[in-house]
């Protein structure tokens, strides 16, 4: 297994270079270094000298990919792409365009993201699996059809509706929790109840419907009929037979998400004022802060690759027949 993990980690290097190249290209298709300079310097009295000075100070005064004025390897290394990318692989994220240390910001902001994402993730899985199992128990009844209808309806509603509706009802009309905010010291849970609740409810439609499909596939297997013939109760069949056998597809969809929980959610964090990495990314995009965007995409890619490796490992735990080689 060790060799397998090392090999997968080595595969990650070209993937990360590719992701970085793509991010870089897409960003500079939309923004030029001059645009970035104007965005940082403000829109008044920006002289060409000030723009040049900003570019020089921040390392954007070189060609993007190929430096025709240089010779030898410098043609490729004395460029914005090389200078800005190579440091990422040493996990040196540098400073944002406004001068803040990105590593410090990321390490500070990942905890609020996790504080929202982790309970949403765990409670969400629990609720979705429970509902799906209940619905499977009543397969092909009116209850099942009604539930599927409800799932599709829940899936069709915009995520924004859940957020705004939740804020309006729970925080504004009923005044049960703060409408938004995050105070690390003291009663943090008061600020997490609503975003977690909204995240869980918004995910029920898609989640429960997906788990229902997985469980139904297993429910028609011979071993289930055998268990039922043996006289096992429905609950025993569901939890002791169907659930463990449906673990492989569940793990495929779930474990990959675990590392990315650190990255937070763009919408939830922005609307609920959670100072996490999701809103960090959104702010960076709005303010054309390429240094942050590049770093966040890089971190996101690494976490995703890590998630895929973890998923493979989890297969071996869920099904002893699986061997990684």
């Amino acid at each position, binding site marked *: 297994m060790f060799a397998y993990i090392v090999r997968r980690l080595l595969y990650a290097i070209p993937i990360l270079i590719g992701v970085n190249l793509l991010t870089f290209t897409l960003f500079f298709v939309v923004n030029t270094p001059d645009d970035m300079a*104007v965005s940082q310097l403000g829109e*008044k009295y920006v*002289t*060409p000298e000030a723009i040049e*000075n900003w570019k020089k100070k921040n390392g954007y005064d070189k060609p993007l990919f190929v430096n025709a004025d240089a010779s030898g390897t410098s043609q490729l290394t004395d460029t914005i792409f090389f200078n800005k990318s190579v440091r990422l692989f040493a996990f040196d994220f540098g400073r944002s365009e406004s001068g803040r240390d990105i590593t410090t910001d990321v390490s500070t902001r990942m905890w609020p993201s996790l504080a929202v994402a982790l309970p949403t993730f765990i409670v969400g899985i629990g609720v979705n699996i429970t509902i799906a199992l209940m619905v499977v128990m009543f397969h092909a009844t009116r209850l099942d059809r009604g539930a599927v209808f409800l799932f599709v309806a829940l899936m069709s509603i915009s995520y924004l509706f859940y957020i705004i509706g939740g*804020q309006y009802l729970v925080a504004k009309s009923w005044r049960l929790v*703060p409408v938004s*905010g995050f105070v690390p010291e003291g009663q943090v849970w008061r*600020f997490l109840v609503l975003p977690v609740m909204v995240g869980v409810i918004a995910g029920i439609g898609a989640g429960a419907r997906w788990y229902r499909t997985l469980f139904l596939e297993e429910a028609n297997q011979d071993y289930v009929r055998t268990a039922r013939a043996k006289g096992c109760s429905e609950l025993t069949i569901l939890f002791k037979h169907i659930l463990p056998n449906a673990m492989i597809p569940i793990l495929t969809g779930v474990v990959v998400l675990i590392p990315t929980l650190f990255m937070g959610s763009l919408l939830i964090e922005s609307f609920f004022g959670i100072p996490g990495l999701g*809103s960090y990314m959104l702010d960076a995009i709005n303010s054309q802060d390429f240094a942050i965007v590049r770093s966040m995409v890089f971190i996101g890619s690494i976490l995703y690759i890590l998630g895929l490796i973890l998923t493979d490992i989890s297969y071996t735990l869920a099904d002893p027949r699986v061997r990684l080689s």
Partner: protein
Amino acid sequence: MKAALRFAALLAAISLAIGLTSGCSEGPWNDPNPSSPPNKITYQSVMTPAPPKHLDTALSYATDEALFLMQIYEPPLGYHFLKRPYELIPQSVEQLPEVTYLDKDGAPVDLESGEVAYTRYQMTVRPEAHYQPHPAFAVDASGEPLYLFSTAQEGARFHQVPDFPELGSRPVQAGDFVYAIKRLADPVLGSPMLGLMGQYIVGMKEFSDRIDEEPRERWLDLRQYEMTGLEIIDDQTFSITINGRYPQFIYWLAMHFFSPIAPEVDRFYKNPGFVDRNLTLDWWPVGAGPFMMVKNNPNTEIVLEKNPNYRPDFYPTEGEQGDAEAGFLDDAGKRLPFIDRAVFRLEKTVLPLWTKFLQGYYDRSGEVRGNTNRVFDQAFVVGPDGLELTEELRGHDITVSQDVKPGMYYYGFNMRDPVIGGYTDERRKLRRALQIAFDLEEYINIFYKGNGIAGMSPIPPGIPGFMDGEAGINPYVYDWVDGKAQRKPIEHAKQLMIEAGYPNGRNAVTGEPLKIFIDVQSQAMNNTTMNWITRTFSQIGVQVEYRPADWNRTREKLLTGNTQIFSHGWIADYPDPENFLFLLSSSESPLICECDGANNANYDSREYDDLFEQMRLEPSGPARDKIISRMIDLYQKDAIWLYTFFPKDNYLNNAWVSNTKRHGITPGNLKYLRIDPEHRAERQAQWNQPVTWPLYAGAILLLLLLLPGVIAYRRRLKATATH
């Protein structure tokens, strides 16, 4: 029976949980603010939609950032809080600058002599002005700085300014103002002021070039380098010399760029390793203003506290007409500031901000942005006297502060465009026809709920040169009827179209329909607005095509003149007509100066340019008013902009906040604000009683949903097999 007992037990458990939860919190359940220190009056406010990027006086150039800087720093001059038109007053200096005109040899000359080569501004610092307590000023027994480290390791235990146990302070000195100006010229900092001020302050560019050659691994003491235009006369007195005459320079002295910076503070933040922990002057400003920053978490909140070393400062004893009746003089002569702390929380979206304001958790609806983006439309209804607060808000005793900022939105014509640009009579008539067809008053009513004033010239109300009444109307677009301006009828626009060679909107020669192109920023215009504009111009047979793009691409088009009609806006830096009329000076046209100029209409008139130069140097008075009037005539005759309007900002105040008069130029007015904390606490408790029945209802609903399932499951277990 057994099931009923279980059900009852579950209900009891839920009730207990709710009861326990409610007992956990002392105040209302929905209070989003952490508890404030007792015996300190805390102002609860908001920063929106993003945290400040720069808090260094040399780098910052945004209103959102000035909100903080202008409380922490004290520039030499400031604005009178109450008087209108805006009036400059001395702030960290004793009096307004003493202005001396110099000839090319530096000898004083009379203004009228025609030999003025330089202007010198001399100021004397208030002896009572002191910096806030800060570790940069802390010294040991021998008077040496306490926190100067030679390696990053030595200072590694300090992560934020409040981590430093020892603090110090000292009086503000003349050299600190000079040091601050030298920082503006430091190319490593990259101040946006270097380009502009480099044209005026003598020796600034040379200074910048000189220090650009110096190695910068460690702190560079700018005191060692001379800038010709700056002189420290004694500990309290300094002067700034500028090239030629630039009467508007005095207004720049009221902006944060010219606030004093102590060299030891600059040196402190250059300690090795500090920048890696965001310990910089850009994030922890140090000034001598009424407040100091005690917490800077740009992700959640910024907290200011009263500067214990702030100089004696008092609430003004006079204002403009009506101020006394409005209660703005109730605190006349009292020592400032009135509040002890100010907390600014980050709000990125509107609903939470609005909800918290209505719940009483924010004292005011905003700081530097009012209702310009129609955030609080739901607060108003249109009544017989115009906009009125809704019944709910009136029930909360909420008050409105209205503010017409010295700024504008406008749609400009590109005067170099081959179809609508140019200076022939036909082109002028074509543009006037479009101006008349665009019913600006309706546009403001529909899309801004009437929160704006249709502009007759580029000068907004409150600025010298603004003319009201019949004398102020644009006679090419409006008639004066029954004591008010009335837009000329659409028939007049149609007639102008005929005279311009476009009868019914078609080219008289080719028969082609006239299609105009409007460049808009994608996020700034919605379909409803586009439809309205299309319908408006269809009245004179003109077709419209929109070319939406993001700001970067729009800016690129403006710089290359690749536009026909474009949308833009302007907020003035200072309340002088020069800061508006320069928008049409040919020296500001990007196509002429090949720079990022502000005259995006590319208006090019020798007469206007000459008048502008005269007006710029002329002191306020009838002669200057006459020049301005002629410039406005040219603006109206040449029909340079499709329209301009001056937005009105509405700010809402909860009843416990006093002295809420808005100041269009400076946001540095926190020191005047007064809060009644008892009133606030009482109202917050009254407005935020939790509604608990949904919790019980939710629990019962959940059980009711589960119950049929449980019953069906039990029935199924007991049923006989059917297959």
